[in-house]
């Protein structure tokens, strides 16, 4: 077996799909060719990494709650536990808040405020999900998030604003904001989207309980 044949047969060999005679040839070539041995090492390493890609666990109690909700909803002949895309389980877990906004195809020239107040516990991280529905893809949308005193985005401590650019896809987009209040009573959080000279501003308030 030459190097080219080794490399052609390497994946089937590692998959255990190679017949025995060919497998022996692969092993023989591997033992005598450093270059092909290095190729094999890289493939094995990549496979090991792929197998170790983690799955984040579901929210605490989700699986049991999902079965229970299935039984309850089936009993009621209702089938929309998930109607709001995870809101039920999120509220049950008490760690996530959802705020839903509708984004028109083109951002309006005048800011439009939608204000809701949500509760939060001092020094306890809470993720707020702002849902934006856009009728078409908007590229290079600038997002600015402004925070009141004492309120921080987790990972960006000490910042009163964070801004970045992104693409808003057609359909539903979710902006996840992990928020923690370090001092004070909370206040208004502003999220502003700018696109091609137009902007839309969303505002919601967090109140420490």
């Amino acid at each position, binding site marked *: 077996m030459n190097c080219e044949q080794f490399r052609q047969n390497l*994946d089937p060999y590692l998959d255990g799909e190679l017949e025995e005679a060919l497998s022996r040839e692969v092993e023989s070539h591997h033992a005598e060719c450093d270059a092909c*041995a*290095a190729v094999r*090492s890289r493939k*094995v*390493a*990549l*496979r*090991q*990494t*792929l*197998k*170790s*890609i*983690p*799955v*984040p666990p*579901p*929210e605490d109690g*989700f*699986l049991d709650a*999902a*079965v229970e*909700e*299935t*039984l309850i*909803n*089936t*009993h009621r002949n209702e089938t929309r*536990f*998930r109607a709001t*895309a*995870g809101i039920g*389980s*999120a509220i049950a877990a008490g760690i996530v808040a959802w705020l839903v906004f509708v984004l028109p195809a083109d951002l309006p020239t005048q800011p439009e405020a939608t204000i809701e107040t949500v509760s939060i516990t001092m020094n306890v991280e809470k993720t707020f999900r702002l849902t*934006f529905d856009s009728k078409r893809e908007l*590229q*290079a949308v*600038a*997002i600015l*998030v402004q925070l009141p005193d004492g309120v921080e*985005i987790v*990972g*960006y401590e000490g910042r009163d604003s*964070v*801004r*970045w*650019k*992104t*693409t*808003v*896809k057609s*359909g*539903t*987009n*979710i*902006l*996840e*904001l*992990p928020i923690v209040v370090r001092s004070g009573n909370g206040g208004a959080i502003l999220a502003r989207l700018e696109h091609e000279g137009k902007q839309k501003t969303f505002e919601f308030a967090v109140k420490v309980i």
Partner: protein
Amino acid sequence: MPISRQNRQPSFTALIRPHLDRMYRFAYRLTGHREDAQDLVQDVLLKLHSRMDRLAEVEAPVTWLGRVIYNQFIDHQRRYKTRRLALVEDPILSASPDQAPAAGASTEELAQGEFTITRVEAALEHLSDDHKLIIKLHDVEGYTITEIAEITGIPHGTLKSRRQRARERLQDLLDEGPVRPNSASGESRGEEYDELRAVPAKLGSIS
């Protein structure tokens, strides 16, 4: 004779409970996001409740459940393809493959250090949906080609050739160096903006 609800409740729970973890895991590999995976599992459970007799009879429940989840996902992709604009630091740009190897590291260790989870995950997101699916189910989750064929209805031969192309593409992406998101969108990382990006966590929408 109809089965009373009192009789069905424990049966459904008993039947489905051993599979829930794997169902969630499978759903996560399809959707790529925890909340969407939970929604997918919840929707499938609602469907399964009326098919519990079938579930009790199937010889290969893992494959059968995989097919139910996969079909639900394919039939309602939009529902499970919500784009998330998560506020995160850019893990890809910071994932350099050229970290200095430890002295005396073996060939295997050197190769392992080259393919960090962050880098490989980032590269995976650049694959097409078809390639991503085969890699995630086969190379990540360990489903066999035969099982994936039963789950997806895609012919065995198609899956094998697709697997090979997907691996080659993945290797090419990793060989190119750090994988950069949104490179084709024309977005610039201007000085006025933070080094943040929105993560379209769904199905290879990084482009």
